[in-house]
C-alpha cells in the first residue's frame, strides 16, 4: 500500500489488533522498480524490528527482494543504509526495534543509497 504524500491517506492497518502501520521511504530506483508513487506503508507485528519491517516490504513488493538485503544470507547490501529519526540504524541488526516514532507511524524508516561521486 502506498500514499502519494506523508499523512494524506488512512491505511486501515491500525484497525487490526496487534498490527501497526509502518512508513517506509525508498530511494527513487527502488520506487521505480516496485512501481510505487510514494512512501510504502506496510503492516508489521509489534514489537516492530528493522528486520520485520523489511520482511513486510519484501512481502508487499516481491520485486524488492535482493535489493536491500542479499538473497541467501540476507545481509544488508553494502551501499544501502537505513536511517530513522536522524539516527543511523544500519548496524543495529535485524532484531533491533525501530524507534518508537517509526513503530507508531509518525516517522518513516528511510532506505538510502550511499552517496557516490565527488
Amino acid at each position: 500500500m502506498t500514499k502519494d504524500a506523508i499523512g494524506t491517506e488512512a491505511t486501515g492497518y491500525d484497525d487490526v489488533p496487534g498490527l501497526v502501520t509502518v512508513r517506509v521511504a525508498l530511494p527513487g530506483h527502488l520506487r521505480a522498480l516496485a512501481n510505487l508513487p510514494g512512501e510504502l506503508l506496510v503492516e508489521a507485528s509489534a514489537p516492530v524490528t528493522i528486520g520485520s519491517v523489511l520482511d513486510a516490504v519484501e512481502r508487499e513488493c516481491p520485486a524488492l527482494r535482493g535489493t536491500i538485503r542479499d538473497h541467501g544470507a540476507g545481509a544488508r547490501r553494502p551501499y544501502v543504509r537505513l536511517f530513522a529519526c536522524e539516527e543511523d540504524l544500519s548496524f543495529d541488526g535485524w532484531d533491533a526495534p525501530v524507534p518508537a516514532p517509526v513503530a507508531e507511524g509518525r516517522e518513516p524508516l528511510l532506505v538510502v543509497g550511499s552517496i557516490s561521486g565527488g
Partner: protein
Amino acid sequence: MLVGTRKGAFVLSSDGTRKDWKVNGPFFNGWEIFHVAGSPADPNRLWASQSTSWFGQQVQRSDNGGASWQPVGNEFGYVGDPGDHLWYDGTPKPWKFTRVWHFEPSLTDPDTVWAGVEDAALFRSGDGGASWQEMPALREVRGHEWMPGAGGLGLHTLVLDRADPQRMFAAISAAGVFRTDDGGASWRAINKGLRSGHLPDQDAEIGHCVHRITMHPERPSTLYMQKHWDVMRTDDAGENWYEVSGDLPTDFGFAVQVHAHEPETVYVVPITSDEFHVPLDGKLRVYRSRSGGGEWEPLTNGLPQRDCYVDVLRDAMAVDSLESCGVYFGTTGGQVYASADAGDTWQPIVRDLPPVLSVEVQTLP
C-alpha cells in the same frame, strides 16, 4: 535494435530500408543494462539484465517487444558451496554472484533462457525467468584456478548450436572457452592453440582472456574469437584454434561478428591495445575479412576518421538477417552506428546515448 547502456536500455526501430530510426527509451533509467536479448522463438519475448552496485541484480522480461516490462526472478544461487577462485594477486577469493552479463535465449522455447554471470557461472531458467538454476559442472573445470580479467570474472558469451541442441560454447574472462556436448551436464576447456602473453605457460589449458566468440549458424564447427590480443578461428568446434589476425593494424579488441549469409565474412573493431582502449590513431574503423580471416579491409565510410577515442565492447556488435546484411555497433561514447550494406557505408543512428554496453538486433517480419 536492443541497446543496453550504463544508464538504461533503448529500443531502436526502423523499416527494412534501415535509413530512419526511432529511438524509444530509456527503459530502467539510471540502471546499468549489461544486456538486452530477444527470443528467437518469440521475438516479443525480451530479457534485460538490470543492475546497480547499490541494489543488485534485477531481471526484466517483456512479452510485447519492449512496450512494457516486468521484473522476474533475481535469485542466482550457486549449487553447493562454490568455494574460492583466484583473485588478481593469486590469492583465493570466495565465489560471489555480482551480476548477469549476458542472456542467451533458447532457439526454440521462449520460456527457456541461459544467463552468464559474474562470478563466472552459467544459469538456466525454464520457467520464463521465475527461477534460475546453476549448471555447476562448468565450474568443475578447474574453476578454483580461474582468475578475473580487469572487467571481472564474467561468463560473457554463450553460443548455441542449431544443429546440435546438446552442444554449447561458453566463454569466460579470463578463463577461456568451454564446451558441453551433453546439454551442460559436463564441460571441458577447449583452448588449444591460444597463446597469451600474460600466462607463464603458453600451452595452459585455462587462463586465456577470451573477449568474445561467434559462430555462423550454418557452419557450427567454425567459430571466430576476439581474444585479448589475437583474432582466432577454429574449424573443429574448438579442438584447435589458429590465428587469423593477418594484416590487422592491431589485433586487440572486443567485438567480433559473422555476416548473416556469408560464413567466411567476419567483422572486428581493432582497438589500440590493452593499455589504450581507444581506436588506433583516433580513427574508428571496422575491419572486414571476406576470407574467414587473415586478409582484412578497413571499413571507414561514414565513421569518424579523426579525433575519435571511444571503445566498442564485446557485446556491442550485431548483424541483422535481411538480404543485404546489416551490421551495427555501439560505442562507449554513446553512438550507435549502422550499415545496411554489410559494412560498406555507415551512418550514426543516435549519437548521444550513455556508454553502450550491448547491441542486439531482431529482424522482424
